């Protein structure tokens, strides 16, 4: 179309009314002028107009041809089709409502889940060339993902040929004080000098750390996040060079990062991916460079362009072999390298795809359902279509008319679906499980909207095509003659609808099996004994700054005093302090200790989670004592050294023996006083509720801990609502040391509950989708049975005349519904058996092929089908023999 045509076409769009008038006037003028000429030639006046009209041809077809000339016939017909479609839909509001609502629900659900997929899986991470960033871990036979040790890192940084830059980071919170208000705990990471280069992010002000600041004594510099700079320093423009007090030591601010910088996430003492970090300080390398046994830093690197993660991992593994030949501690490790993107979204990747699959199934069912309903209506409209065909409507035109109708339906559904999706995505994000990555990237954006539009159009074509083709093939003669009843076409159509319903039921069963398996899995999780009693427990974290609390005595003494003071509070049933709260993902592990009288299996060492705990810690958190005794105040410095161990440790290292009274030591050449004696065995707590089994674990009494544990969690068990104890806790801490921050005040049952949130989230959504699928299938069954009953009413009447009872008729109709469902169920459960593996690692304690689930799902489907067939069956029993006889 060139410019002139475009302009003319557009003129016809905007000035339509005027131009239509012009068209009439022009043709009228022509007729009049012609008629006058005819009169002049002697034609009688009355006849002249008629002749002139005939000469011009039909005015309307003339006008159609003229509109066609300016490219407007197509859009005119579309407009007609649309108006016709709208009228047809308006005529049957129940039908329209059911079909539009079911489509809106399923399209909306698809868009909502797609927003999740788009935000989490499709959008690139917010770092420049993020695909080049990889995370580096150690791996051994017992630890699939383990932190690095700092000295190995220096060797890797010096020797590798794969990374543009390679850095480490480790979580080390600090307290910011001296600001005039209560001290605040800053979520802080110690980082090596290349860290921000790896992320590809420049400080907004100031600079990154350089190599010199990695040396001990040079590390008192800090980079602040934009948030801390604004909230704690009022966005002071002269912030660079200012001294701030971190853990009571002076640090110089050398940089401020830009707003919205995202932490790449970490696994050791983990902080979630996102805008979650307040400050960064340099990681300083101190101590003995040959001590390679201490693993607590996480590796992250930016690959040189053209280097793959696999190549880099091979490079690193080569270096690892060299290191292992030089250092005993480095034996047994290999490198595990993973793209940052996969590390961040890996945990939810599978769940999202399963959700997308589920919601896609729902849409497919909704399509089948819509096709089914349209077919039913096409049957009712057979006469109308036959009339149109007889009046000369071209077959393609009929097809287009029918498709316009289905597209109108699906676009209405899509529009409503977008509204649902916008609301739904808000709700989804709100209910996302704790620790779900990249929630900030989840929006209904233009991409999601185009996806929705595409889905809506695709849906309309999909469910509209079959009924449209069927309708356009109606033979006008037959359609007019028989009114559709009993004709071969309608038999074929009934069969087609039966097939559709079977498919619907099958798909719905597939979803129901998934939902059922998830429900059982969730119940399994809930039924588990957590190993502790999270109700009525308040927890809070305290970190003692190293500057003021250097020795074990300082640290242990502080906690002892604090606990004594807290014990006097009214409403406190038990109070304790411990490291590593259950289910918080922070699990310190120690390997290589010695058990008296035992040798570890070859190539392995004794290892266990290690913690310290105060005397009343176990009572406060509700971990039961199985044998022996808890700690008491006599387990202090100078007294015989003692340990508590968990049941797994007792059974693993002292199988068939009583572990109480046995001794272990952490020294290579122990004196008699270096041995710790097991005084009790406590119940097991798994790392997470879904872990297969608990890891071996032991506790030192706080007063005998071999090195100071500055960070501890206070555990307060109250009589009733423990949240009421928060203020008292804060004031007791302030009494002892006003420079301390009380951080992460949480209710333990909330902490425990977060562990179920992923399962609950997936269960809720899959359950919702399955319910929707079941409803759609029920509508489908109802539609087919109800149509078949109205077709067979005369037959039923005859049967009644021949002596059939109401019960016989009821049974006949119900049998039809149940039979269709039965076939669908068989197909659906068969598919579930084949596809069940998809769900396996989302489930806990059962497989998706769990027979009980399959049986229950089958039963639900059959009951639903019976309920959906019942109204039609009851209608059949009212068949009147007289009506049938008269009709035939």
């Amino acid at each position, binding site marked *: 179309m060139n410019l002139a045509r475009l302009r003319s076409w557009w003129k016809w769009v905007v000035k339509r009314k005027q131009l239509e008038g012009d068209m009439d006037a022009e043709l009228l003028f022509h007729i009049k002028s012609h008629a006058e000429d005819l009169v002049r030639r002697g034609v009688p006046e009355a006849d002249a107009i008629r002749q002139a009209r005939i000469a*011009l041809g039909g005015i309307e077809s003339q006008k159609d041809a003229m509109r066609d000339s300016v*490219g407007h016939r197509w859009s005119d017909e579309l407009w007609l089709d649309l108006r016709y479609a709208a009228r047809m839909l308006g005529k049957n509001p129940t039908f329209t409502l059911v079909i539009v609502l079911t489509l809106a629900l399923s399209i909306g659900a698809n868009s909502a889940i797609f927003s999740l997929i788009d935000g989490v899986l499709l959008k690139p991470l917010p770092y420049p060339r993020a695909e080049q960033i990889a995370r580096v871990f150690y791996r051994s036979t017992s630890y699939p993902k383990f932190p690095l040790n700092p000295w190995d890192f220096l060797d890797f940084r010096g020797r590798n040929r794969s990374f543009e830059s390679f850095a480490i980071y480790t979580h080390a919170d600090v307290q910011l004080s001296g600001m005039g208000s209560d001290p605040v705990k800053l979520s802080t990471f110690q980082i090596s000098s290349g860290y921000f280069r790896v992320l590809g992010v420049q400080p907004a002000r100031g600079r990154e750390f350089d190599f010199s600041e990695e040396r001990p004594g040079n590390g008192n510099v800090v980079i602040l996040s934009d948030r801390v700079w604004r909230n704690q320093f009022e966005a002071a423009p002269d912030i660079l060079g200012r001294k701030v007090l971190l853990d009571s030591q002076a640090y110089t601010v050398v940089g401020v990062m830009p707003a919205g910088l995202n932490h790449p996430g970490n696994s050791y003492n983990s902080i979630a991916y996102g805008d979650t970090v307040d400050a960064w300080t340099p990681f300083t390398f101190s101590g003995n460079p040959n001590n390679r046994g201490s693993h607590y830093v996480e590796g992250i690197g930016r690959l040189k362009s053209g280097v793959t993660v696999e190549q880099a991992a091979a490079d690193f593994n080569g270096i690892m072999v060299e290191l292992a030949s030089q250092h005993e501690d480095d034996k047994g490790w290999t490198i595990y390298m993973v793209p940052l993107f996969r590390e961040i979204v890996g945990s939810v990747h599978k769940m999202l795809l399963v959700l997308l699959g589920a919601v896609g199934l729902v849409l497919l069912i909704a399509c089948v359902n819509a096709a089914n309903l349209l077919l039913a209506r096409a049957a009712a409209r057979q006469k109308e279509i036959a009339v149109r065909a007889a009046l000369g409507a071209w077959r393609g035109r009929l097809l287009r008319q029918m498709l316009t109708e289905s597209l109108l339906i699906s676009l209405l559904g899509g529009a409503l679906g977008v509204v649902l999706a916008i609301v739904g995505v808000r709700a989804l994000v709100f209910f996302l499980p704790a620790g779900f990555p990249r929630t900030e990237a989840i929006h209904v954006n233009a991409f999601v909207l185009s996806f929705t539009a595409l889905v809506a159009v695709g849906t309309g074509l999909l469910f509209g095509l079959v009924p449209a083709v069927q309708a356009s093939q109606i033979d006008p003669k037959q359609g007019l003659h028989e009114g559709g009843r009993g004709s071969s076409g309608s038999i074929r159509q009934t069969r087609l609808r039966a097939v559709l319903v079977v498919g619907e039921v099958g798909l719905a069963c597939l979803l129901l099996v998934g939902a059922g398996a998830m429900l059982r899995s969730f119940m399994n999780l809930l039924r588990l004994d957590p190993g502790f009693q999270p109700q009525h427990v308040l927890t809070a974290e305290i970190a003692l700054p190293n500057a003021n609390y250097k020795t074990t005595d300082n640290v242990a003494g502080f906690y002892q005093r604090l606990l004594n003071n807290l014990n006097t509070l009214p409403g406190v049933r038990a109070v304790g302090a411990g490291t590593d709260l259950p289910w918080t993902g922070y699990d310190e592990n120690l390997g290589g200790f010695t058990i008296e009288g035992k040798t570890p299996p070859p190539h392995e060492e004794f290892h266990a989670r290690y913690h310290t705990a105060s005397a009343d810690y176990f009572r406060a958190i509700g971990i039961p004592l199985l044998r022996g005794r808890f700690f008491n105040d006599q387990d202090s410095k100078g007294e015989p050294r003692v340990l508590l161990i968990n049941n797994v440790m007792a059974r693993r290292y002292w199988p068939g023996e009583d572990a109480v009274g046995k001794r272990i030591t952490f020294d290579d050449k122990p004196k008699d006083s270096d041995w710790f004696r097991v005084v009790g065995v406590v119940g097991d707590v798994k790392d997470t509720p879904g872990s297969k089994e608990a890891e071996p674990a032991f506790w030192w009494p706080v007063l005998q801990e071999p090195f100071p544990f500055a960070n501890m969690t206070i555990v307060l068990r109250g009589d009733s609502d423990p949240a009421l104890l928060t203020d008292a806790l804060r004031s007791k801490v302030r009494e002892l040391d006003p420079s301390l921050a009380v951080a992460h005040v949480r209710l333990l049952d909330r902490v425990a509950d977060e562990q179920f949130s992923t399962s609950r989230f997936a269960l809720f959504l899959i359950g919702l989708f399955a319910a929707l699928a079941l409803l759609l299938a029920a509508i489908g069954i109802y539609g087919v049975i109800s149509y078949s009953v109205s077709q067979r009413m005369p037959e039923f009447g005859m049967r009644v005349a021949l002596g059939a009872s109401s019960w016989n008729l009821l049974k006949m109709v119900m049998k039809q519904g149940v039979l269709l469902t039965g076939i669908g169920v068989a197909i659906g459960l068969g598919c579930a058996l084949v596809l069940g593996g998809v769900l396996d690692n989302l489930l806990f304690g059962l497989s998706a092929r769990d027979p009980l689930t399959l049986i229950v799902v089958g039963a639900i489907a059959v009951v639903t089908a019976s309920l959906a067939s019942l109204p039609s069956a009851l209608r059949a029993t009212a068949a009147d023999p007289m009506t049938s006889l008269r009709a035939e």
Partner: protein
Amino acid sequence: MGKQVDLLQGTLDMLILKAVSLGPLHGYGVLLRIQQISGEQLEIQQGSLYPALYRLEHQGLIKSEWGESENRRKAKFYRLTAAGRRQLQSETDKWNRLAAVIVGILNTKPEGI
């Protein structure tokens, strides 16, 4: 009316352009003008006239405006645009060449080969 010649496919547009190139005309006037200058030998199918006029205007070869007819009625007059004039020129050249070739072919005698 004498014996009439059928209009060749695709020539109507060209004839309309020629007709309005001699001065603005309304639709009925186009019809009369073509009949007149063809010496009443051509009669245009009235049904195809208006679609053709609309098509030419749509293509920007003619443009229309309302005016008063010779019998003092409101009528829509068409006139040639610059683009239409170029189109008419090239159509005329094409037609003349084609006609010359065809006439040459049809006049060929056996001894001319």
